[in-house]
């Protein structure tokens, strides 16, 4: 390394110091990832009901953490880089939570407010989903809202 007299006192020797993990360690991480993949595929054949999504996300997050901490060296990296990663997850969380706070809770205060189907009459709101017809791909669209193909009512 072509070292030089450090120009400024705030650096040590100015050379790059990076952590180097062993091959065996990387192989271990890789095998763990494969094992988790098999686990998640296997789990998909078992219906856990509402727990399905949670289990799937937990496994995926475990895998992601392995990749981030070891393959991407975040474990040994500058703490600030880890902070960037974590805070970006925080903002993604904000995006998720706030958006779902709307989409999941429409019509809670008054059943007629912001709903796709009017609860009293079961009417679909006009201007909504129109079942695509093969002709639609060609550019012709039935504009009559009455032909609505009744989207599954989520509310």
């Amino acid at each position, binding site marked *: 390394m072509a070292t030089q007299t450090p120009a400024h006192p705030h650096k040590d020797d100015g050379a790059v110091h990076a952590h180097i993990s062993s091959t065996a360690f990387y192989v271990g991480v890789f095998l763990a990832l494969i094992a988790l993949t098999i686990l998640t595929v296997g789990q998909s054949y078992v219906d856990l009901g509402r727990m399905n999504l949670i289990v799937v996300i937990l496994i995926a997050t475990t895998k992601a953490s392995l990749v981030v901490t070891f393959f991407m060296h975040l474990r040994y990296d500058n703490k*600030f880089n880890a902070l960037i990663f974590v805070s970006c997850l925080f903002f993604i969380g904000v995006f998720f939570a706030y958006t779902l706070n709307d989409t999941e809770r429409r019509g809670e205060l008054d059943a007629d407010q912001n709903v796709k189907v009017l609860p009293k009459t079961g009417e679909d709101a006009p201007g909504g989903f129109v079942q*695509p017809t093969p002709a639609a791909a060609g550019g012709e669209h039935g504009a009559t809202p009455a032909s609505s193909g009744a989207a599954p009512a989520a509310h």
Partner: protein
Amino acid sequence: MAAITTTPGAHHDDADPNASFLEKKGLMSWLVTLDHKRIGIMYLISVTIAFLLGGIFALLVRAELFTRGQTLFDADTYNKMFSLHGVVMVFLFIIPSIPAGLGNIMLPVQLGTKDVAFPRLNLLSLYIYWFGAVFGLYSMINGGVDTGWTFYTPYASSDPAHGGVGSATSVIPMTLAAFIMGFSSILTGVNFIATVHKMRAPGLTWRRLTLFTWALYATSIIQILATPVLAITLLLLTMERFLGLGIFDPRLGGDPVLYQHFFWFYSHPAVYIMIVPGMGVVSDILATFSRREPVGYMAIAASSLGLALLGFLVWGHHLFVAGMSEWATMVFSALTFLVAIPSGVKVFNWVATLYKGSISLQSPMLWALSFVFLFTIGGLTGLFLGMLAVDVHLHDTYFVVAHFHYVMVGGTVMGFVGGLHYWWPKFTGKMYEEGLARIGWFLVFIGFNVTFIAQFIMGSRGMPRRYYDYLPQYEIFHQVSTIGSWILGLGFLVLLVMFIRSLMNGKPAPRNPWGSAALEWLTPTPPPTFNFVKDPVLTRGQYDYQLATDDELYEGFDDPLFPGLRGGKAPAKKAAAEGDHG
């Protein structure tokens, strides 16, 4: 003692490395440059052209509204005019204006470093911006867009060519333009964050950064975290129009309100991308022209970061009447008010900075003081809109239009033009005519207020925005507003003439024309390619006027109120110098 070791006043006329960065001539020397200052200047030229273009659209919009019914052109043309005004001003002008323009030029100098961390990325961001602008121009040549700058679905996404109900205009090139320009903004943000973290000169601790640097740093964080969401939103919108994805278009099973969430997750923080750098400029100008460290330095810096963070938590206040759940409405309203705290902290600290200062009302200071006044109004009218009940009435009226123009023009543009006045001598090496500058400022200030106060009133009286025609009771307000827009336009014209005259035959600028203690004023004017003749080492803060030496402050400085202070020529020098050591 000399607190910042550079070679003061080293105006070498001979040696090459210390020659001004403007020395090299020829178009290619600009187009392939990696020098942040040259890139910044190219950004400034680009955004100024965009500003003039957007300004022409604005004047046409106002002129059309001068009388009821048709004044100049038909409704479709009017709709395109206000849409293009918004698109050009937001994406081509205001977002890059201060960070990529002034910030690019000044950030590395204020950090005492030779360049930004990734100079090639910096140049790339400029080319991406131009590339995006080409798409925008293509859309305009193709008839422009009439969707408003917000591209709300399904109007923007539902293409009549596929049996849709929306706009038949050239939407896809325009959304792609904004999509592409987003990446320019992101790369600038990446660059600035790495630069501020890793490239600071020795002795330049976080506590010693200028407030402009702090503001750019906060802005970069928003650019990184928000802009990609705009990118994906516009990509989804483009694909919705092109392929009919079924995510935002209700006829295909999508949800238009979801689009608004996506769009405002970016576009609300984008408001802080626009205003926070302006706040940084103003903090620096107030310090220089009051000759003292801003009161509450850490509070101002922290409030920039606070705004960056809070900016992400309040986007829902654009959706109060859009069909969002009441729960979300409540949470977003409560959080929206929190924005008032850092904004208020800034305003109070700025005013307090003037107290017991030594205030000089030169033109940059006039812009900075106007910023404080207009931003106060802009911010307070924001509280009207944050209050749920009041927002229900004021939403989508001219009140909103006036409010965000008070923030965007009264805030950002005032900051941008003020910053341009302030740093102009440094990066062009030329002074401008103070008289013309003051006339320009006066016209802009008056014209702006006339234009938009009329809009506040008609807005609260119920005049909806984006209206081609209006009921008779609003006519007087529209006419006052239009006349104001002419004064405003004239003011900017005067400024344009002033800057061009300065470039053509302005007097050479001294090293430190304002007597500032900050780092950028201690390097020659204009700075050498690598910014400093000798790598600076800081032993004091950039606002420590009482620690700055006489040489640092007054070399080449000619203040009419302190005649004879320069270079030890007058007897008055000694007393003043001792005082300054305080």
